[in-house]
């Protein structure tokens, strides 16, 4: 069974979706319970991955499966090739972990066309899991595109007032990026075949071995980077995010923030960086600048938002700036920090969107000025909100600190020292905008009579938050659970990148042309 675990995991939600189609559409409780159970089953099926100690010692892909799929002679060949290593492990776990939480958050929030909503959620889960485990670049692309569709409908149908605008914007941004990526994928494939490499489909292992000349590398890297940077999103390609987040239903925002954005960061780590490390080196100052601008700009814009959800969305831009800065450091600390910060962002920002959802359901507004003094009315809510706020601010002892600190440390140790210094300023700004928002919503006197009747969190809402709180402290206090299984793969990745960069250096010096000029 374990040799097909990944496939089982990935396609279980799809099977669930098919079964769901046979449930009558007006039986909403059943639809919701079924989806919840399906996502929970997926989560439990995925647990053996997290407990597998092979990741501690081996950097190789585990649970690999290989099935030849499409084969058109020499022109085109792709395979169903999947596997998981320390880099994708925790993102897969994050996905299976967040999904039941997202489903549970829709319990009372989603009222129209429940069946469609649940079906799309399940489809989305398959697409996301598939993208994380693909070892064939073309397969990755298929899953990547597959994610786009359910998310588009989730925003467009169940969203807020400007949902159509937001959905179309989301679609256009992401689709443009993917098209560029598709071109680059095809180009790099034929380039490999032409240069005599015996390609086995779009296997990323073989792409890893390839040495692409600097000029071509740069263009290919830019195509990939553009596509991933939209998804992350990196400044200045972030403008779709606040709209999408604000309009999306709570479950959509949670999944979008927690998992979908990670596709971009994961894409950099898995594909763009190891395939084209020299091009990255060339672009480094610009990319790092964009990260730092993202951190500072995201924080400043978050500060002036009047809508809580927009504020959280902009804080995402800042947080992902930290992730990318760590990743671009290309050393173990930076990469580990970036990876764990991806998970952290999923937990903390996911939780923040849930929190925003809780008050939105009660008051049908997200304007900060409508609130104030809720702490007295809703003490449990206040406590949970505060813990998550401080996790988002990166207080030591919570998850946020570990990720931010290691990202900054990684950047500091690499050539990005001054960028790290500026990024650290973002840590101050985070405290400003988060605490100011918290103060305006929770502290002060309860002046608005509409808030006087607000009820504290109910059991379901508390149950949603508890697992997130557990991980806030777990990652904060003992992140080694996660690092231990991540480090071998990341070490291998670092070696691989460094090796390629050195080869390129040697190559550059010793080419016959250079000698002749001398």
């Amino acid at each position, binding site marked *: 069974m374990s040799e097909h675990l990944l496939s089982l995991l990935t396609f279980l939600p799809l099977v669930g979706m098919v079964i769901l189609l046979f449930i009558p559409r007006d039986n909403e409780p059943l639809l919701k319970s079924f989806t919840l159970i399906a996502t929970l089953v997926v989560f439990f099926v995925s647990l053996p991955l997290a407990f597998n100690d092979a990741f501690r010692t081996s950097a190789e892909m585990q649970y690999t499966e290989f099935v030849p799929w499409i084969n058109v002679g020499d022109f085109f060949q792709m395979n169903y090739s999947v596997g998981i290593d320390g880099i994708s492990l925790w993102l897969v776990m994050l996905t299976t972990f967040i999904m039941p939480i997202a489903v549970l958050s829709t319990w009372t929030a989603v009222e129209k066309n429940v069946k469609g909503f649940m079906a799309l959620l399940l489809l989305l889960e398959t697409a996301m899991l598939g993208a994380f485990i693909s070892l064939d670049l073309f397969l990755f692309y298929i899953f990547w595109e597959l994610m786009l569709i359910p998310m588009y409908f989730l925003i467009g149908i169940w969203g807020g007032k400007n949902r159509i605008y937001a959905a179309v914007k989301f679609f256009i941004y992401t689709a443009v990026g993917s098209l560029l990526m598709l071109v680059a994928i095809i180009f790099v494939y034929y380039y490999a075949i032409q240069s005599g490499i015996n390609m086995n489909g779009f296997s990323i292992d073989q792409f890893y071995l390839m040495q692409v000349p600097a000029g071509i590398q740069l263009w290919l890297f830019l195509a990939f980077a553009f596509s991933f940077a939209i998804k992350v999103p990196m400044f200045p390609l972030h403008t779709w995010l606040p709209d999408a987040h604000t309009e999306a239903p709570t479950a959509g925002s949670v999944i979008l923030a927690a998992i979908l954005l990670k596709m971009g960061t994961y894409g950099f780590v898995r594909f763009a960086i190891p395939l084209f490390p020299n091009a990255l080196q060339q672009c480094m100052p610009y990319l790092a600048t964009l990260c730092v601008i993202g951190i500072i700009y995201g924080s400043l814009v978050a500060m002036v938002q009047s809508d809580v959800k927009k504020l959280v969305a902009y804080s995402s831009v800042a947080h992902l700036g930290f992730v990318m800065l760590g990743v671009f450091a290309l050393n173990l600390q930076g990469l580990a920090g970036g990876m764990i910060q991806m998970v952290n962002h999923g937990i903390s920002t996911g939780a923040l969107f849930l929190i925003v959802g809780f008050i939105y359901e009660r008051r049908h507004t997200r304007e900060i000025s409508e609130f104030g003094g809720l702490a007295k009315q809703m003490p449990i809510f206040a406590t949970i909100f505060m813990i998550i706020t401080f996790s988002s601010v990166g*207080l030591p002892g919570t998850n946020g600190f570990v990720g931010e600190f290691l990202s900054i440390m990684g950047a500091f140790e690499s050539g990005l020292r001054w960028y790290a210094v500026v990024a650290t300023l973002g840590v101050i700004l985070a405290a400003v905008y988060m*605490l100011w928002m918290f*103060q305006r919503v929770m502290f002060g006197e309860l002046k608005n009579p509409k808030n006087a009747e607000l009820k504290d969190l109910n059991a379901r809402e508390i149950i949603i938050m508890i697992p997130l709180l557990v991980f806030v402290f777990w990652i904060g206090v003992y992140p080694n659970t996660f690092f231990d299984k991540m480090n071998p793969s990341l070490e291998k990745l670092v070696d691989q990148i460094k090796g390629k960069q050195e080869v390129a250096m040697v190559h550059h010096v010793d080419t016959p042309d250079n000698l002749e000029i001398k």
Partner: protein
Amino acid sequence: MYDKLWLIPLFPLIGSVINGLLGKKVIKSEKVIGAIGTLAVALSFVVSCKYFFQLLGDEVKVHENIIASWMSVGQFQVDWGFLLDPLSALMLMVVTGVGSLIHLYSIGYMHGEEGFYRYFCYLNLFVFSMLMLVLGGNALVMFIGWEGVGLCSYLLIGYYFEKKSAGDAAKKAFVVNRVGDFGFLLGLLTLFWTLGSKHGVWTINFVEIAEHGHLLGTGSVVVTVITLCFFVGATGKSAQIPLYTWLPDAMEGPTPVSALIHAATMVTAGVYMIGRMNGLFAMAPTTMMVIAIIGAATAIFAATIGFAQNDIKRVLAYSTVSQLGYMFLAMGVGAFTAGIFHLMTHAFFKACLFLGSGSVIHAMHHAYHHAHLHDDPQDMRNMGGLAKKMKVTYITFLVSTIAISGVPLFSGFFSKDEILWWAFGSTRGSWILWLVGAAAAGMTAFYMFRLVSMTFWGEQRTDARAKDHVHESPWVITLPLVVLGFLALVGGYVGIPHVLGNIFGHIPNYLEHFLEPVFGHAQETYHIAVKEHLAHSTSLEFLMMGISVLIAFAGIGVAIFMYIKRPELPGQFVAKFSKLHRWCFN
């Protein structure tokens, strides 16, 4: 032998969790909640005592206790590790000892408050964070405590969160602290990276830093940058120029909080941190000079603001800023022992002063409440003559005031005198620093006796309807006052200067001897000491001591003259120099 150090922070953490989770719905009873909170810290105190005395009798003075790995990524290895040496042992005693007393006091002071359980949850959490800060065996565990105390300070300043000013003050405190933490982080990163990449020692462990720190090179640019960054962190936490502004606002919190966090413990964290890394700081003369100058400037600047305040707590707040300036002055001139000594005596007398002011506010509040008035219970202009009504509070308050003023034989005298002597005579000192310090001492004496005059002496100016309802506070409030007042009286005798000790038959300076394993090495290696030709000049030391005592008495005299003998004078003075007054009022 020292493998149960983790018990010390564990007790308050458990107390905090119990009260936080069960306090409101399950326990409910104020008595039980208060008892759990107080007991948790008292247990820590007991364990601290055990280790303190064990360390006293031990040959080896530095003990590490590693519990588990925290983060392990490549060369970056951080443990959940604790460090017990004379410095942390002394701090443990101060934090848990004063902490226990203030918890006890809080039971009485916070009686009837709606969020009683919440208060004790936060207060215990604070003690936990502070103990992590003190015990942290590496810079990152210290940083947990460092930001943790900032968090608790935020929570406790914002305790009355329905008041906008409280929410603002809380946020301000946290953000300003964060600005300092920015410096701390940069210092930490630079240190780790430089030691690792240039010298092959990848560490942020304090013991290893002390061992290998010299590789950075005495007076080198990098060590100056590192220590300056750390010092920025210290200015944030310890409210030094220019990051002092949050501390006076922090008085929005309940008074016991001001006593514990904003006087005795948290705000001294910056001083402690410099003491912890004294080896690095000793290598950076430029940084030391900056610290001394900032310290001296803060000492005198905050004292001038203290002149003009009418809110009893704000006077004490500025006084704290000023006294912290003294501690930094001490650290800056290399008088590490004196700095820590003043930290300790200050913890005693300032905690006592704050708790005493709390007792007064408590009494005023009840009197006004009784008379259905809404006057400000913290305004000294409505007090006066309380000495007769609140005897215990008055006597303990007076003792502490005398101590802070530097009157001989009280605790503050010994520590302050030691600092001034080093400021004058140290190889890193200068007569200008001494002069500023001495002037600030005179001003301290003045504004403190102004406070006592306005509060306890003279005519009672309270509204006639509330006048007779002012009573002494219950025993849970006065007992801590008595204990702290006693410590403020005798706490200085552990560090008697050699010149005085020699007169009375060679009484050694116990504190100096005790802390020698921590500070001795750096002081010896980098030639930090009182200049040789001064060190033997007993008469000069007595002369300096005499001058500072005279200045203190002058301050006291002026205060009594202005506020008791000729109470009309201050008003005329303010009218005449209104600009100056406003500047002082800040």
